């Protein structure tokens, strides 16, 4: 594999991995705090992307405003789906599979609402067109302002979220809820309020991921749905419970889809069209062989570091 390709693919890994991290952290948070493997998560991404696209088409090209709007719309979609669907279902103590099915149904509804909107405005496959500038160029490596928006924004948000979870009272309550729901209720943690905030964060982050995705690619009603398996793979690599594990998992998935895929293509002629199979294989392998994901690995590394 040519070295220039290696460099490009590593840059892509950082970029895509950061986006996966944004989405997968939300998924991990939903799973651990809300106890829901939420397949509608993909649609919060798409909703954020369309919100961003629509305001960009309306002439707003300031990335910060675009990102803020995407956050709000993603968060709104998530909170509404919680209040209307998931909360009442949880109250009824339905089985996990009912919740999974409900999350598919919520995803379907949001997806086709977005289809209706996209069809109405005729906005399929469009990019959020902030002008492109080249910031840095050396040999085969070119960094644009899009890279400067996508990767750092994701990374900053991931850091902020991690701080929020580890350092604030709300984060402590979220972790308490994730660790032991019954005890959390027993000691009087306002479970519903914490859950609402969780959904807000989860949806907002997904929305931002959608906007950033739309900056570097194209927005379509199926974009979130197409990425959801990769995002699940990242969350599963984190054991669906560990935040550092999930972030690492996101980069591992992105690395496999970019660098490893290209290596397999150039060295063994594996067709790039097999790329979607990579997260599948990661999921199956992790669940069968290391269901705790990368958490143990991280812990061991942490202990060695001490």
């Amino acid at each position: 594999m040519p070295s220039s390709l290696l460099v490009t693919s590593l840059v892509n890994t950082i970029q895509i991995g950061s986006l996966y991290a944004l989405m997968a952290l939300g998924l991990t948070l939903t799973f651990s705090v809300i106890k829901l493997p939420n397949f509608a998560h993909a649609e919060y991404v798409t909703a954020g992307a369309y919100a961003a696209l629509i305001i960009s088409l309306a002439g707003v090209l300031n990335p910060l405003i675009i990102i803020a709007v995407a956050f709000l719309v993603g968060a709104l979609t998530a909170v509404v789906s919680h209040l209307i669907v998931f909360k009442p279902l949880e109250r009824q103590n339905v089985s996990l599979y009912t919740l999974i099915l409900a999350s598919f149904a919520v995803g379907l509804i949001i997806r086709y609402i977005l289809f209706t909107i996209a069809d109405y405005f005729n906005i399929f496959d469009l990019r959020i067109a902030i002008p492109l500038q080249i910031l840095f160029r050396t040999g085969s490596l070119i960094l644009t302002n899009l890279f400067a928006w996508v990767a750092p924004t994701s990374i900053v948000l991931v850091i902020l979220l991690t701080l929020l979870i580890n350092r604030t009272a709300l984060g402590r309550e979220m972790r308490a809820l994730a660790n032991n729901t019954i005890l959390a209720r027993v000691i009087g943690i306002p479970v519903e309020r914490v859950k609402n905030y969780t959904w807000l964060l989860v949806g907002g982050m997904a929305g931002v991921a959608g906007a950033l995705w739309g900056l570097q690619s194209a927005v379509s009603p199926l974009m979130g749905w197409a990425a959801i398996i990769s995002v699940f793979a990242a969350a599963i690599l984190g054991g669906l419970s560990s935040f550092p594990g999930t972030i690492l998992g996101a980069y591992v998935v992105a690395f496999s889809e970019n660098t490893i895929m290209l290596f397999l293509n150039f060295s063994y002629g594996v067709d790039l069209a097999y790329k979607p199979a990579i997260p599948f294989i990661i999921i199956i392998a992790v669940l069968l062989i290391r269901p705790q994901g990368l958490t143990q690995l991280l812990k061991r590394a942490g202990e060695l570091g001490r």
Partner: protein
Amino acid sequence: MIKKLVSISLLLVMLSLLGAGIQAQDDIETYVLGIPLPFTGSFGSFGQDFERGILLAVSQMNAELEAAGSNIRFDTASADTEQTPEGAARALQTIAQTTGAQVVVGPLTTDEVLGAKQFADENGIVIVAMASSGPAASIPGDNIYRVIYPPDTFSSKAFATIALERGHENMVVLHVDDPFGNGMNEQFIANFQAGGGGEVASFGYAPQSTELSTEAAAVSAALAGFGDNAGFFCVCFPGAAQAFVQVAQVDPILTTVQWMGNEAMTTLEMLEDPGHAQTLINANFVTVSQSAASTPLTPIFNADFVAMFDKEPGIFTNYAFDAANIAMLTMLAAGNDGAAVKSMLPFISNHYIGTTVQAYLDDNGDQAIASYGIRKVSDDGTAFEVIGSYNGNTDTITYN
């Protein structure tokens, strides 16, 4: 109990819907044109657009029939194929059993056409497909007619000829990994090498991809590996094409080579981003497309479309328009009867000139005339303009 429930509810539903149908006037005879197309899924926007093209044709035809005092009118019945073969079969079944339609215009892809084939053949329903070009559906004697759009054997040859003419020794192909993309790729390689071309490196991308940075990196590296005199050929659908250009526009290799691309890449959305348009201009991007082969009717169609729907027609919309006209003309001649339409359609089609070209069918019921336009991005980057034509039957390129 269940059976009873099933049959009763079925009956009730049918009866209530039947009520809606008894409003037709006695002296007017209505022929129904079925429209099985993917309205949902990733080709949903294509489906919607094609449907508009067909509706335009039907409304024009009805106006003419009325003016001429004919007692025949056309109506349409569209059903969603959900972009799956089995969905296409169900859509066709529903259309036929609900409206008695004998002729349908659609479905879109070769998968869907083949999915609908068994039911169509068994029940004598004629499928007039406007855009399917995969070789798998080139079957003699069946009820499938693929008018307007010729099989990709021709366009792949055109692309190979252009590549050779441009002096490319080697080529890199990025193609969607579906029957269309693979077929185009294979035939392109065969034609390119038969004409004296060298090595071709091909990369398939998964059809559902929304992000093509990996693929762009691979294409760029392969081009670098070939050195000078290598060219690039993209066989991509609009969404993927957008995503690809977005990454490629800053790639040091991809911005220095010449590009070719399939017809689906020439949507106006591709040019909406000035950076993308400039990239395509710099890359000397050309496409070989049936839709560019215009007749005097093409601008009229465009104007009528805008007048009716208040938006520009899509890249393939006039194929649907022409296919619908061929279907309706045949029905006017043969009556609302599948078997008669099947036997008569090649004759009508051979005498039809629409917004693209004449639809002359071969033994498989596929378009046999391959007359393409060659297009590039206009200098101001706002539109695609015709710079020449390719005659697939004589394999000759003529530049304006």
